[in-house]
C-alpha cells in the first residue's frame, strides 16, 4: 500500500497533466460538454459584456464600409419595389393584394465577437432570449448569409457561422432553377463548396447563389455566394462548385436575425408524417 502511494506520488505531475489534457480534449470534441455546461451561460454573460465594449469602439472604424454595404443592399431592395417596374400587361391590373401574409420578420444585431480561423467558427451577437431570439433562427449580413443561431443566453446569442463544419444551407443558382447544398470545407474563409448541382445545368463563373425557398430558416433570395469555379465530382452526375462567400467575414459588424412566423406551423405539419395518427 505504501509502495503504491509512493508510486502515485512520483507520477503526480503526469497524472495532473493527463487529467487536464483529458478535460481539454473532452471540451474540444464534445460540444455538449462545452456549451451544455451550466457555467457556460455565466461565462458567456461575462465575456460577451467585455467583448461588446470592444466592439463598440471598433465599430466606429468600419462605419464607412458598413454604410457602403447598406447602400448596396438598399439598391438591391429598391430594385424589387413595385415602383421600379412598369406594367407590361395593361389588361390585368391588381389593386388589392391580400394574397400575401408576412412570413419573416427581421431584427438587427451587432456582432461582438467572431472567429474565422478554425474548423468550427462561432459568432457572438448582442441579442438574446430577452429580445426574442431562439435557437435555429437564421442570421445574415447586408452582403449575404452569415449563419444560424445555436445557443441563446439572456442578452446574447452564439451563432454557428457558415464557416462551421456542421452548417449546410439549401441554395439555388439564380435563374437556373436548381437547388444544391452549400457547405464549408475548412480551407479558406472566403470560399465555400456547393454540392448536388446536376451536370446538365449550364453553370458559368460569376453565377449568383441565393438561399432557396425550401428552407424555413432563410427567406428565398438572400445572396450566399458567387461561383468561381466548378468541376464534376466522382460520380460524374453532379458538379463540385467552389464559390466566393457573399458575406464579408473579414469585416462583420451589423447583421439581421430572421424570425419565421409560421415555422411552428410548418414543423408541426412535418411532424405528422413521422407519427401518423392511429
Amino acid at each position, binding site marked *: 500500500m505504501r509502495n503504491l502511494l509512493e508510486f502515485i506520488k512520483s507520477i*503526480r*505531475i503526469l497524472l*495532473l*497533466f493527463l487529467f*487536464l*489534457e483529458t*478535460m*481539454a*480534449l*473532452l*471540451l*474540444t*470534441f464534445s*460540444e455538449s*460538454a*462545452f*456549451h451544455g455546461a451550466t457555467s457556460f451561460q455565466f*461565462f458567456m454573460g461575462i*465575456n460577451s459584456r*467585455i*467583448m461588446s465594449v*470592444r466592439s463598440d469602439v*471598433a465599430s466606429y472604424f468600419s462605419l464607412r464600409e458598413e454604410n457602403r454595404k447598406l447602400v448596396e443592399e438598399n439598391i438591391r431592395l429598391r430594385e424589387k419595389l413595385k415602383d421600379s417596374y412598369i406594367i407590361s400587361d395593361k389588361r390585368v391590373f391588381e389593386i388589392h393584394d391580400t394574397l400575401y401574409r408576412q412570413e419573416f420578420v427581421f431584427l438587427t444585431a451587432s456582432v461582438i*465577437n467572431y*472567429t*474565422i*480561423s*478554425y*474548423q*468550427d467558427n*462561432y459568432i*457572438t451577437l448582442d441579442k438574446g432570449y430577452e429580445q426574442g431570439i431562439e435557437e435555429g433562427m437564421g442570421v445574415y449580413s447586408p452582403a449575404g448569409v452569415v449563419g444560424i443561431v445555436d445557443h441563446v443566453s439572456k442578452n446574447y446569442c*452564439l451563432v454557428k457561422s457558415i464557416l462551421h*463544419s456542421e452548417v449546410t444551407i439549401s441554395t439555388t443558382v439564380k435563374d437556373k432553377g436548381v437547388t444544391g447544398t452549400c457547405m464549408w470545407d*475548412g*480551407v*479558406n*474563409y*472566403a470560399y465555400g463548396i456547393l454540392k448536388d448541382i446536376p451536370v446538365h445545368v449550364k453553370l458559368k463563373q460569376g453565377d449568383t447563389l441565393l438561399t432557396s425557398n425550401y428552407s424555413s430558416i432563410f427567406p428565398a433570395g438572400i445572396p450566399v455566394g458567387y461561383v468561381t469555379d466548378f468541376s464534376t465530382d466522382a460520380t460524374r452526375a453532379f458538379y463540385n462548385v467552389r464559390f466566393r462567400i457573399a458575406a464579408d467575414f*473579414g469585416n462583420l459588424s451589423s447583421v439581421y436575425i430572421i424570425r419565421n412566423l409560421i415555422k411552428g406551423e410548418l414543423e408541426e405539419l412535418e411532424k405528422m408524417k413521422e407519427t401518423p395518427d392511429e
Partner: protein
Amino acid sequence: MNNKLILTNLLRFLLAMFLQLMIFNYINLFGYINPSVYLFFILLIPFETPIWLALCLAFLTGFTQDLFLSTGGLHAAASTAIAFLRPFLLRTIVSRREYESGLQPSVSDLGWKWFLTYAGITIFIHSLIVFYLDVFRFSHFFLTFKHAFFQAIATLFFIALFEYIVSIRKKK
C-alpha cells in the same frame, strides 16, 4: 520578493490576455493566421514555479482564450501540453548560465539565441497541436502543417517584438 514575483506575473497574465482578446484575436492574416501572443505569459513563467502550478496556469490561460473563441478546449489542450514539455525542453537547451532561482526565462537574462530557440520550439509545438486538433477529421495534412508553421512564425515574431521592447526598457 516572492510577492513581487506573483504580482509581476499576474500583471503579465492580464496584459497577455488583454492584448490577445482585444487585438490579436481580430488579426486574421490570410484568414488563418491568428497569432497566439498570450503564450508569452506561459513562456515567461519563472523557473522556480512548481510544475503542477505551471500546468494549472497554462490550462487556465488556454481555457480563457477558448471561452472567448468558442473553441472548446483547443487552446487549453495545447497550452497544458507545452507547460508539461517545458521542463524537458529547458533541460535540453543549453544555456550559458545556470538556471538559478531569480533568473527569468527572458531575453534580458539569457540572451536572444537562447530565447528564440526556447520560444520557437514551444510556439511551434503549440501551433501544431492547435491546428491538428482542430482539423481532426480532415485530411489536409500538408495544408494544416503549412498553416501551423506560418501561425508559429507570426506568433514568434510578435512575442520577440514584445521581448525586444521590454529588453530595451530594462537597459535604460
